[in-house]
């Protein structure tokens, strides 16, 4: 079973959201994802990294870390910031809830529905860690072995 990882860190600039998508998609291509699954991974990544840029480091700029890993035939994506943190996680996950009136409040909803698993840990004024995991549908039949 192939194992691999990629750790990255970059400043919380809006332009880096698309860079993060490119990197995650290139890393994910090691597994047997369909184009549709890769698209879902790109959206989930975009939401998680955008949240760091907009919410975690609202005014100031900070550093965003990502840890990508392939393990047991699954892709895991960690997105870590040291920003403002989330006060009420359940509230944050509510569809259409946003602390920013200009936004749709769908980021966490998309992350949950497009990935197999999504968990968030957050400490106010300390930061937020998002973990997302996804396994290619095509590899689920045969117990996670790659073709």
């Amino acid at each position, binding site marked *: 079973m192939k194992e691999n990882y990629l750790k990255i860190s970059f400043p919380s600039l809006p332009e880096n959201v*698309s860079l993060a998508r490119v990197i995650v998609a290139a890393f994910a291509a090691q597994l047997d994802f369909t184009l549709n699954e890769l698209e879902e991974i790109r959206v989930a990544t975009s939401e998680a990294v955008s949240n760091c840029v907009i919410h975690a480091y609202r005014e100031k700029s900070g550093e965003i870390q990502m840890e990508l890993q392939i393990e047991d035939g699954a892709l895991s994506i960690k997105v870590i910031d040291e920003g403002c943190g989330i006060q009420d996680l359940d509230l944050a996950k509510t569809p259409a809830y946003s602390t920013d009136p200009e936004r749709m409040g769908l980021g966490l909803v998309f992350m949950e529905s497009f990935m197999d698993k999504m968990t968030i840990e957050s400490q106010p004024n300390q930061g937020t860690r998002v973990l997302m995991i996804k396994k290619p549908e095509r590899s689920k039949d045969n117990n996670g072995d790659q073709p």
Partner: protein
Amino acid sequence: MDLNLERNGRVLTVQIAGELDLSTSPAFRERIEAELGQNQEIQHLILDFKETSFIDSSGLGAILGRYKSMAQRNGKVSAVNVPPHLQRLFELSGLLKVMAIYPSLEEAQN
């Protein structure tokens, strides 16, 4: 992202090429709002997604914002050439409730 705006009387057609996300949606908003501001007669905004490679919730929010601008002037927003992966995002986000999808530009114009 590259935008191509074409006004024809009361109809403004906007071709969106590339990615509509956090970094590009401000330009999307500004270009369209400027055009709407200069042309009060515009009643129909048609968004053409033929060349759109990516949209996330920031982009969907920018589209919803334009719907609100059009609703304020009793106008409407339509979408054409919507690829399957965007169709699904439009559904999940509820945008389909306020934006009609047409298979072609011609059909949207009528």
